[in-house]
C-alpha cells in the first residue's frame, strides 16, 4: 500500500530537471577531474600520527586522533549532538506510549536474552577502543539500539519519565569533556593538552561519559520529541486537558 503522497513526486524529465542534471554532471565532471589530478601517494599525517602514538595514551591511532590530536573537533561534535536533542525537543512532543502495540511475549523473551548481551558489547567496544577498532561512538550506538528496542516493546517508561536524570545524562558527556579540557590547564598545559602520564585514563573517562550521552541522544532522536514526564501528565489531567 502506498500513500497518495508518494506519487505526487513525479520523475518526468522536464526541461528544468534536464538543466539540473546538466549542472550536476558538470559539477561531477569538475570534481572527478580534480580527484584524478591528486598524487597517487601521499603520507598525509599518518607518519606523524604514528610517531606521536606513544604519547597519546592509547594504541589505536583513530581513537588517538578522535580524542587526543583532534580533541577539539570531538568536543564541539558532542555539543552538536546536544543541540540536536534540544532542537528536536523544542519542535515536538513524543508520541504517547498508547500509540504502540503491546509487545508480544516472543519479542519480550527475545529482548531478555539480547539486551544484556548488547549492553555487554557496548562496554566491550568502549574498552577495546583504546587499542583496536571500537570506541565511544560505536559503543554508544549499540547502547542506543538497546534503548530503541525498549521503546519498540513499550518498556521504556522508566527511562523517559525521570526528566532530571535524563537531562543530567544527556549533558554528562559534554560536561565531563569540558571539565577535563579545562582541568588540564591547571597543571600548566594548554586546552585539551592531556598530561602524558594520565592521558589514557583521561581519555577513558571522557569516552565513558560520552558513551552514555551519545546513546541517550540517539535514542531521544528516535523517540522524536520531549517525553511527557509524570508531573506534566498529572498537570495536564488536573487542568482537564488531555496530553497530546
Amino acid at each position, binding site marked *: 500500500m502506498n500513500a497518495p*503522497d*508518494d506519487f*505526487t*513526486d513525479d*520523475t518526468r524529465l522536464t526541461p528544468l*530537471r534536464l538543466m*539540473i*542534471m546538466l549542472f*550536476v*554532471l558538470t*559539477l*561531477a565532471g569538475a*570534481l*572527478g577531474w580534480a*580527484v*584524478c589530478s*591528486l*598524487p*597517487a*601517494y*601521499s*603520507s*598525509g*599525517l*599518518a*607518519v606523524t*600520527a*604514528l610517531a606521536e602514538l606513544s604519547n597519546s595514551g592509547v594504541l589505536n*591511532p*583513530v581513537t*588517538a*586522533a*578522535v580524542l587526543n*590530536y*583532534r580533541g577539539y*573537533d*570531538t568536543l564541539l*561534535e558532542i555539543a*552538536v*549532538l546536544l543541540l*540536536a536533542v534540544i*532542537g*528536536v525537543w523544542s*519542535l*515536538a512532543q513524543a508520541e504517547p506510549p498508547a500509540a504502540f502495540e503491546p509487545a508480544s511475549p516472543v519479542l519480550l523473551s527475545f529482548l531478555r536474552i539480547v539486551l544484556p548481551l548488547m549492553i555487554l558489547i557496548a562496554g566491550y567496544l568502549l574498552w577495546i577502543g583504546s587499542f583496536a577498532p571500537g*570506541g565511544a*561512538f560505536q559503543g554508544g*550506538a549499540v547502547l542506543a539500539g538497546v534503548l530503541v528496542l525498549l521503546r519498540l516493546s513499550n518498556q521504556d517508561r522508566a527511562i523517559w519519565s525521570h526528566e532530571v536524570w535524563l537531562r543530567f545524562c544527556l549533558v554528562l558527556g559534554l560536561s565531563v569533556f569540558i571539565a577535563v579540557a579545562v582541568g588540564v590547564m591547571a597543571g600548566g598545559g594548554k586546552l585539551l593538552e592531556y598530561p602524558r602520564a594520565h592521558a589514557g585514563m583521561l581519555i577513558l573517562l571522557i569516552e565513558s561519559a560520552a558513551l552514555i550521552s*551519545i546513546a541517550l*541522544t*540517539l535514542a531521544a*532522536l*528516535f523517540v*522524536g*520529541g520531549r517525553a511527557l514526564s509524570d508531573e506534566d501528565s498529572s498537570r495536564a489531567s488536573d487542568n482537564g486537558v488531555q496530553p497530546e
Partner: protein
Amino acid sequence: MTLEPYLLYALAGVGLFAIGLYALIARTHLLRKILALNVMGTGVFLFLIAIAYRSEPVADPVPQAMVLTGIVVSVCATGLALALAHRVQTTTGRMVLAENDESGA
C-alpha cells in the same frame, strides 16, 4: 592501464555526491530530500577515506577520525531534519516545501 583502488573509490564518492545532489534538488518529497542528504554525506565520507587510504604504512587516521565524528553528526542532522519535516507536515498538511506547491503540480 591499472586503476588505483583509491582513485576508483574517490570517483565513486564523487558519483554518490552527484546522485544525492540531483535528488536533493529535483525531488520534492521531504523524506526523499533527507535520504538524498544522507547519500551526499556518504559520498563525501567515501572520498575522504579513499584519500586517507593512499598513505603508508597505515591509512591516515586523521580523516578517519573526521569521518567517524561526521557519521554521528549526520545521524543527528537526520533526526533533527525528520522533526522539522514532521512540523512542516503538521502545519501545512503536505510533505513538501512551500515553493514546490505551485510549480510541483
